[in-house]
């Protein structure tokens, strides 16, 4: 086989890897309002689910991260903008007070190694 064929194969593979890395669509599941407080639930097991959450801005918000026998990276949660860094218990729910986010703001969280992430959009 000649060089051109290899280059074409290589480019095709780069596209495949690019697709693997592309993120998912937004979701409102896991958002619940109780007694004037917005609770956003995210599951942490082999990544964060949902990856993108649409929430309401301008109201007190709490993030609930649920682990369920989680040993992978998603248990080591980092939210840079609020300086939150913690290794979550293997199984359980961790409540994090986010305060009030303005409409239009976003919150990004990721695992300690940086390979899993999630995003919350406040609209």
């Amino acid at each position, binding site marked *: *086989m000649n*060089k051109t064929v*290899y*280059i074409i*194969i*290589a480019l095709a*593979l*780069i596209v*495949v*890897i690019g697709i*693997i*890395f*592309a*993120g998912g669509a937004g979701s409102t599941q896991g958002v619940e309002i109780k007694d004037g407080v917005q609770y956003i639930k995210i599951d942490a*097991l*082999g*990544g*964060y689910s949902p*990856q993108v959450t649409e929430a309401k801005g301008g109201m007190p918000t709490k993030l609930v991260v649920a*682990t*369920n*026998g*989680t*040993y*992978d*990276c*998603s*248990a*080591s949660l*980092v939210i*840079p903008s609020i300086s939150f*860094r913690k*290794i979550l218990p*293997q*199984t359980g729910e961790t409540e994090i007070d986010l305060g009030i986010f303005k409409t239009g703001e976003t919150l*990004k969280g*990721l*695992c*300690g*190694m*940086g*390979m*899993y*992430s*999630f995003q919350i959009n406040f609209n």
Partner: protein
Amino acid sequence: MLKTYTFHVSGTYCASCKILIEDILNEQEFVKNARVNLKKETVEIETDGEKNPEELAELLTSKVKPNGYTLSVEKIIPARSATQRDAGGEENKKDDVVWKAIPIGLVFLALFFMLQKSGILSFGIGGKTTPATSFIVGLIASVSSCLAIVGGLVLSLSAKISQDNVSDTKTFLLFHVGRLVSFAVLGGVLGIIGNAIGINFTFTAILGLLASIVMLMLGLNLVGVLAKNKIALPSELFNFFRKIEHKTFTPLVIGFGTFFLPCGFTQSMQIVALSSGSFTSGMSIMFAFALGTLPMLALLSFGSSSFAHGKHAPLFFKSAGVVVIGLGLFALLAGLAGLGIINPLFSI
């Protein structure tokens, strides 16, 4: 009185070989000064001995032979030894190998990331953590995204060590023993200390960044970008290679260092060891975890060694280089994101 001889030396094609050969030769009593010329592949020796050049060449060869180098009065053209020939001439053939290696490396990268994305590996393990469950967690960890950093590092170092023809089996054994022992001991220590200390995020993250930079450098070196023109690596890294190749101690230390590399699984297990409350339970948990990661890591190191001595060695080194560069980039970007320096670029 001092006499100066010049010998041809075969097998030297990298900056670290130069240092290694000079070190070994300078250790000999009758050698006053040894200087390797990488470009000419010669070594200049100042000696006060009474030996003739042939005897000297034979004697010195016996010292550097275990590391794969040969000294001779006449220039010898190596009959076999694909890596050396590859590093030398044969530009066309070499180009071909690079183009073949890129798709091969990318296939492995794509398979690896697909495996991560598939979710096969993300099942929860409930109940109390026992040594048996830690072993299973170790097995999963060894094929998880942690492989990007720990495995990538092992693959790059192994391929590099095998390429340099250093007694690789011994080095790998030391690395794995160092890893198992330090996991056991550090696990035990965490068990005693209890919840008093936490494992520092920033420290592990920085160590991870360093590891990914080493991977990128070694990857480029394996592919041949750095080795091609025999560009010397920065001196700190230079010394680092020299240590890996030359000392018994270093593989043990690198094995020890893997305890602190960023890997979610390792960190979770460290927390379990912390809360286990005793030296024995902390030790058995971390040891079982390290044992679980052993098959995959052993496969990577001893696998590279067997490929490195086979006839597809040049292709293997270059493909491994592509894989390592990919994993290194991934780990670097992820590490920077983890530190909050850049936005997460991707999510698998």
